């Protein structure tokens, strides 16, 4: 059982929904990220998604594109990110998911990538531009190193695709709430709940919802039917606006605490029937 599985099983037992904040590693530099990670954990994050900056983040909206650019400008590299994670791991056992684009992972050498990522203390990989059909090479190594590979489902995914992703995926299924790229949104389609239920009916994996979740109210609503809520761009905006490491960490922590409080107020109603 991976650290991610354990966390979901623990939260599931308490009827709680996981809060997964996303930050771009190295935005604006890795010193800031290390402090932000600490603040996120102290403020109620259940898992953390750590973005690896990429020059061409085509699945991301303007907010995370800018974060990626800031991180690259400060010279952030994958080995440095892993070094920062090692430091963070010394006093934290929160599950960490490395989110990124395939090319930097591929260039690193997948075998070496999986080995070093595991050694640093990462628990799962989400490679946003690598569909399960093409993930054989990566999974060969991530499986060997006990890393969970997380895949995405979108509103356009049909039953066949839902089956493929839930069969191939580990840790949890990441359900993309809207068609489009990452970025804060004002409202969601009402049938999001039904869509999530549709996925839950065919898998034992927890289902997380992300892309566009930006307010405590939205997080609370999604928490009423999903197993996890991922909040990225809205948090990255908070970090972007605050000056200096300390303020960034404080702001990020306060924002995540607000989200978590709102989510806790909602008791999870039985969603669709679960496959047990």
């Amino acid at each position, binding site marked *: 059982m991976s650290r991610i599985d354990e966390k979901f099983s623990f939260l599931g037992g308490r009827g709680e929904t996981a809060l997964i904040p996303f930050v771009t590693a190295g935005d604006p530099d890795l010193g800031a990220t290390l402090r932000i990670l600490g603040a996120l954990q102290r403020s109620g994050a259940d898992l953390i998604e750590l973005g690896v900056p990429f*020059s061409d983040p*085509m699945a991301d909206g303007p907010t995370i594109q800018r974060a990626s650019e800031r991180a690259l400008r400060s010279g952030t590299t994958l080995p440095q990110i892993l070094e920062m994670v090692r430091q963070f791991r010394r006093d934290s056992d929160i599950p960490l998911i490395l989110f990124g684009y395939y*090319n930097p992972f*591929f260039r*690193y050498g997948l075998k070496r990538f999986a080995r070093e990522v595991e050694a640093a203390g990462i628990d799962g990989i989400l490679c946003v531009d690598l569909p399960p059909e093409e993930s054989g090479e990566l999974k060969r190594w991530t499986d060997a190193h006990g890393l969970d590979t997380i895949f995405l489902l979108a509103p*356009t995914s*049909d039953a066949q*695709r839902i089956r493929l992703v839930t069969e191939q995926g580990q840790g949890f299924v990441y359900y993309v709430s809207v068609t489009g790229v990452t970025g804060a949104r004002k409202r969601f389609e009402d049938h999001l709940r039904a869509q999530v239920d549709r996925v839950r009916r065919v898998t034992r994996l927890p289902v997380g919802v992300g892309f566009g979740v930006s307010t405590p109210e939205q997080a609370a609503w999604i928490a009423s039917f999903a197993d996890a809520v991922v909040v990225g761009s809205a948090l990255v905006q908070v970090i972007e606006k605050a000056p200096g490491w300390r303020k960034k960490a404080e702001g990020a922590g306060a924002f995540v605490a607000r989200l978590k409080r709102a989510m806790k107020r909602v008791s999870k109603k039985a969603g669709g029937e679960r496959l047990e």
Partner: protein
Amino acid sequence: MPALIELEKAYVEARRDPSFRREFHRHLREYAGRQTPLYFAESLTARLRGARIYLKREDLCHTGAHKINNTIGQALLALKMGKRRVIAETGAGQHGVATATVAAKFGMECEIFMGKEDVERQSLNVFRMKLLGAKVRVVESGSQTLKDAMNEALRDWVTYVRHTYYLIGSVAGPHPYPMIVRDFQSVIGQEARRQILAREGRLPDYLIACVGGGSNSMGLFYPFLGDRKVKMVGVEAGGLGLKSGRHAASILAGKVGVLHGSKSYLLQDRLGQIRHTHSIAAGLDYPGVGPELSYLRDQGRIRFASATDREAVEALKRLAEVEGIISALESAHALAEAMRLAPRLAKNRLIIVNLSGRGDKDMNVVAEYLKASDEWQIVNSE
């Protein structure tokens, strides 16, 4: 992924459908003005004192480049799939113009993504697109060129995927695009093959085409792939020289990577970040190259060369002076290689160069380039 699977299904059906093929060829003939001539460049050949040079005149296609072949095909596919909105990325603006053109013709809503740098250096094409009723979205992220336009088009596509068709202009991007674009562009090579056989009674010794993403080269090369004696040369943008690091020669100077859904040679740094590219020809200013071209290079089937900005401008000038044809800067890269190669070959050798586009769009850029170089003084005093 679901959108790509839907597209592949629709395309495989269309390809088998004789009425789809008939309609495609009818529009190529009546609207795009095909077939295009295979022109024997007699004066150029005489001056170079070597192989006989033929030019495949894609510059004479409607809208001024080969891009229209593919946009007609994909527009028909979009209509068949019931999509009423098309989007496209563009570098030089030729693909944008060709997309805006078919969108106007077939009554579709159209939005073109173009990097800010390209908007500035290809202002004429921006105006043409607007005149054709397309919305031009200026992309200010990243290097503000073709790859960033493609990122932005992909972002738009995943957002409005239900009613939007993404009309990719090169043999790049995720499957099935490289296959679709290659197939629609293959008309170039099919015609050239028939034409050279009719004219010379034999196959050419060399095919030469410029390579950015690679659509005009794949279009010319593909129907000849089985002809083992026909040699093929892809010419990449050497920019300020391969050693300068400021170029767009993905195959010659890149490493294997994955971008925009395909695995191919990519210009990137040690850690897999995509590098900024440079070429005087906006249409070649892309850090990747079609996956099939990468494969054919690895197989040794296609040789790759490069031409610098300067060599391309010189080739453009020379062709204009001796043949009265103003080539696009992109195609001028292929001409530069032909001018290097021809004098080294026997006079009975045959070269076909794909003159993929005309140069009207480049006149500002060429004028500025010549003004800034000593060359201009020589030209004036001649």
